[in-house]
């Protein structure tokens, strides 16, 4: 136990992958950690994500920074969460001339960002994945994987709890306590017992994802988070064993992720103001079927099992083209940007990079609190998610 760190208490707001990873990192470094989540763990953006453990290849042409983050984290997560991911790889498939024209760029991107890859002809790809379109011209294998977002959060939190963290689901932040320009805690509302009470901490981490702006406003600061929803449709049956991506510029419905007995097609993208309840636009659903069946025609023939939508917490300004917003993350120390002490916001990023986001954030926190405590999450194997319910 780091006695230096244990003098400080940190309150994490948000129980998605970011909050869970931050809580794990904090607890591992010895901070007194409390996490509040207004719903169930992973009931927001994380839970409803695409379940894709990115290799980074999706971003290797246009957003190399994200791509490198992804491949590094991909390799780390394989180590610290053994036995909880489908590590079947992914195929980027080309089904038309435009895709083929993109292939050299794509391979160059993989080379530059250090993503391992292997090229297949269309025929070879179809031998690997029999449901692939007959039009498949070529495919590139990359180390994509499939995880389960909720269980990933629970593995982080189970480990955090073992290291002394307190995790409080169904606890909504109603306001932040300020002393001068310093955030000292939060007024929280226990949705189970319908009572409000105060939680004080030396530092508050805002990991509320698409709701991060709402939390930040409570401290009088602004964070440029744009809730950017995407629609996903999960089809009955496992139409592929590997993740199937379209080898082209990122666009709607160009990934099919096999998970358990379903194949999830995603995703689309637009922006909203309020991410609490998002109507599912029917045209987006149809677009998923249509784009999905370009890669796997069987998609059009099976029944949908679940259709869902959720907002990503992308960093950027409204009005910007959503796909142009970098998928990387940012940790804002509001002492630097807004002269508000004791308050850090972490936003953007992806579940794949949650651990790295936590590392960066907690490095910032350790610096702020002047605590010497190096990050250990790279090599710490997590407990089973089942322990979340038992510790």
């Amino acid at each position, binding site marked *: 136990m780091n006695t230096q760190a244990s003098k400080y208490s940190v309150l994490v707001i948000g129980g998605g992958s970011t909050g869970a990873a931050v809580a794990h990192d904090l607890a591992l470094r010895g901070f007194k950690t409390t996490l509040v989540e207004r719903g169930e763990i992973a009931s927001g953006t*994380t839970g409803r994500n695409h379940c894709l453990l990115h290799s980074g290849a999706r971003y290797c042409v246009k957003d190399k920074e994200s791509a490198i983050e992804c491949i590094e984290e991909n390799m780390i997560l394989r180590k610290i969460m053994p036995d909880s991911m489908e590590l079947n790889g992914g195929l980027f498939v080309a089904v038309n001339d435009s895709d083929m024209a993109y292939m050299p760029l794509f391979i160059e991107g993989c080379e530059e960002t250090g993503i391992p890859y292997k090229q297949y002809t269309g025929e070879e790809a179809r031998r690997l994945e029999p449901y692939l379109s007959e039009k498949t011209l070529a495919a590139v294998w990359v180390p994509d994987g499939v995880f389960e977002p*909720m269980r990933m959060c629970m593995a982080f939190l189970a480990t955090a709890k073992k290291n002394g963290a307190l995790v409080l689901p169904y606890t*909504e932040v109603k306001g932040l306590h300020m002393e001068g320009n310093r955030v000292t805690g939060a007024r929280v509302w226990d949705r189970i017992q319908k009572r409000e009470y105060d939680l004080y901490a030396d530092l508050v981490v805002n990991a509320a994802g698409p709701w991060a702006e709402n939390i930040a406003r409570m401290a009088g600061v602004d964070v440029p988070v744009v809730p950017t929803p995407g629609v996903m449709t999960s089809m009955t049956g496992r139409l592929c*064993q590997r993740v199937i991506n379209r080898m082209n510029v990122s666009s709607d419905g160009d990934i099919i992720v096999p998970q358990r*007995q379903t194949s999830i097609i995603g995703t689309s993208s637009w922006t909203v103001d309020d991410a609490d*309840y998002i109507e599912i636009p029917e045209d987006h659903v149809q677009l998923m079927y249509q784009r999905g069946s370009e890669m796997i025609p069987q998609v059009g023939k099976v029944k949908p099992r679940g259709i869902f939508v959720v907002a990503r917490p992308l960093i950027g300004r409204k009005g910007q083209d959503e796909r142009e917003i970098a998928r990387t993350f940012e940790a804002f120390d509001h002492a630097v940007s807004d002269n508000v002490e004791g308050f850090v916001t972490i936003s953007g990023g992806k579940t794949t990079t949650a651990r790295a986001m936590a590392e960066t954030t907690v490095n910032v926190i350790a610096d702020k609190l002047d605590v010497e405590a190096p990050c250990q999450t790279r090599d710490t194997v997590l407990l*089973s998610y*089942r*322990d979340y319910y038992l510790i």
Partner: protein
Amino acid sequence: MTWTVTYEIARYKPGEPPRTDTFKVEIEPHRTVLDGIEMIWAYQDRTLTFRHACHHASCGSCAFVVNGVEVLPCIVEIQSVVENGGTLRCEPLYSFPVVSDLVVDMGPFFEKMRMMEMPIITPTGPLPQQPADDYNRFENCIECGMCMSACPVVATDPNYLGPAPLAAAHRIIQRPDIPEETKQRIWELVDSDNGLWRCHVAMECTAVCPSDVDPGGKIMDLRRLATANRIRKLLGLKPKLPVGVEDA
């Protein structure tokens, strides 16, 4: 076109007597039961608590009871349960301790699942006869607890292992990647008074399972192995432990 449906939700908050709240929801009939619950939370009552995460039947957290039967509300369309103007009576899963409203404590269930030590990733296909050559996958069981809720024996006997843990045991003794000692230990648990033999073949576990696990069928298969083994013993034949039998 939207429908108007009524949600009758069994509410419970610590320190208050349980009650039923009624909410009217305007919703398209092909949206899911869970979408309606989320709308109630978003627009009508922020104190409503419910578990959910993936919305596509993979995390297993949202299960509750609708009109007397366990469902996974994230994949059940409104129109498949009620007509326009109908009522959905929502209760938390049976047999689990209620934390608040539709939220139950999965602890007792996961304690049993942990005893089974089944890795959630399997190197084999859904059937042991289909060994996967170069891929692995998640087990079918999403650990939603619906089978536990549906079982009339779990309802009265907290000691009974229950359908999902027994189905997990069935997978364990078939999986080639599990060490023999583990299999042997699991078999001891399963072939005990609180294991297989507490089942009375109501088969409701299989009827409600959202993930084709067929826990009832798995329990029966384990019993076939256990019965055959015992009869061999009674006849003085060399006992053939079921461990590894299915791998052959």
